[in-house]
């Protein structure tokens, strides 16, 4: 599985930090989220899918194997 946040779409709503708290972190000075390195595979896939589904800007991409 691959997960990433499209930096051109993310507007810093930060709902992914609630829906997958171990999967995303916030880059304050850029006002956007990114996937925590190494979290894919550890965090339940369902959490990433929820984060993608609830992202208002549709910025989170989950590619299933």
């Amino acid at each position, binding site marked *: 599985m691959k997960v990433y946040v499209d930096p051109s779409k993310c507007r810093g709503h930060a709902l992914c930090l609630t829906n997958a708290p171990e999967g995303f972190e916030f880059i*304050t000075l850029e006002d956007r989220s990114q996937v925590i390195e190494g979290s894919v595979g550890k965090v339940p896939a369902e959490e990433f899918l929820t984060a993608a589904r*609830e992202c208002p800007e549709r910025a989170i991409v989950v590619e299933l194997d």
Partner: protein
Amino acid sequence: MTSSDTGTDTGTDTETAAGGKFVIDFDHHSAELRDHNDELARRLVGTGCPMGWSNSYGGFWSIWGYDALYEAVQDPELFSSGVAKHVPKVVYPSPLIPIDIDGPIQQEYRKKVLAWFNPGHARAMAPRINQICDELIDNFIERGEADLAHELFTALPAKVTLEMLDWESDRWPEWVEWVHSTIHDAAFDPERAAAAVQSVYASIGAEIARRRDGFGEDLFSDIMRTEVNGQTLTDQQIIDFAFLVLLGGMDTTAGVTGNSLLRIDHDPALRQQLIDEIDYIPKAIEEFLRHDGPGGGLYRVLTRDVEFHGQPMEKGDRVLMMFWLANRDPAAFPDPEKIDIHRTNNRHMTFGMGPHRCLGSHHGRLMFATMLREVMTRLPDFKVQWDGVRRFDDCGGVYAIRYLPVTFTPGSRKHPA
């Protein structure tokens, strides 16, 4: 149809196609929006059209279809945020920063205050927000009755906003009164609103003067220190930046909290669900934000002629972005009038989207969740005294409540008086 520069009280369903435009009988500052919000939503959504033209206030577009609004908000080059967008014209003379600004410089302004408006900062404020909430509820919990508008949900965000700015937070009722007048009097009593704006200008001016001898570690000092493209802000720009913090901070979180409490009072099953799932409230708030958000609407102005979703829009046309109504679009939210705190795919637009996404959204969410949790914990049987409930006369800018009297089984203070 009425064509005038004042509002028209509407309410009848008389949409007609004329001049290629889908014309609607609609005035967002009307009593219809204030008193019959759900019916109005059904009427406009029921047209099956995502947008329409109203002849009120010299004419303006409204967009309420979710997909159309999503497209518009992601295209700031076409849908500009310049000050000519307001319906009717605003009572403050210069652009608020950064909401009335377009392009890269708008993002630069935002960056200067991101240290204050990020999820981590909101989390760090949680203990203080809890404390203010506890104190406010302590002040009335033994009484068995309260006006939750004044005594809780208007007070809390106002105090938090003033504390972030490091302005005297005990003066919150005065600031709130000016902010309310700016937002809710602008359409029908512009002189009164203009006087409130002058009071805000003067009081922010006094805060500027207070910091000339040295900055502090507060949001307002950072606004004053802002430099963009090597230029420091003028005093007027400092005022325009701080004023927006007040407008964004004071009325909006209050609005959604009040709106939600009214819904809960109407719906015993929902009330019980919130009591039973009290730990779920930080996520449950998304559904209240969707269904009962405080947004009347924000505006844009067209930068060129365009056919948009089949409608002939012209350069200079003003556009009301009806985020709250897009939140009721059945194509995006199945069974949109149902409040389902476990709803999925809840990509509501209450904080806007795109480059102008509400900067205070993280704080707003936290304050709302805190107040809702404490009300459902400490006065879970609150009963709204409907005879005393008053909305602001004009809810076109922010859909909020001025008085919300309740009774409840008295409880104990958390902290001694």
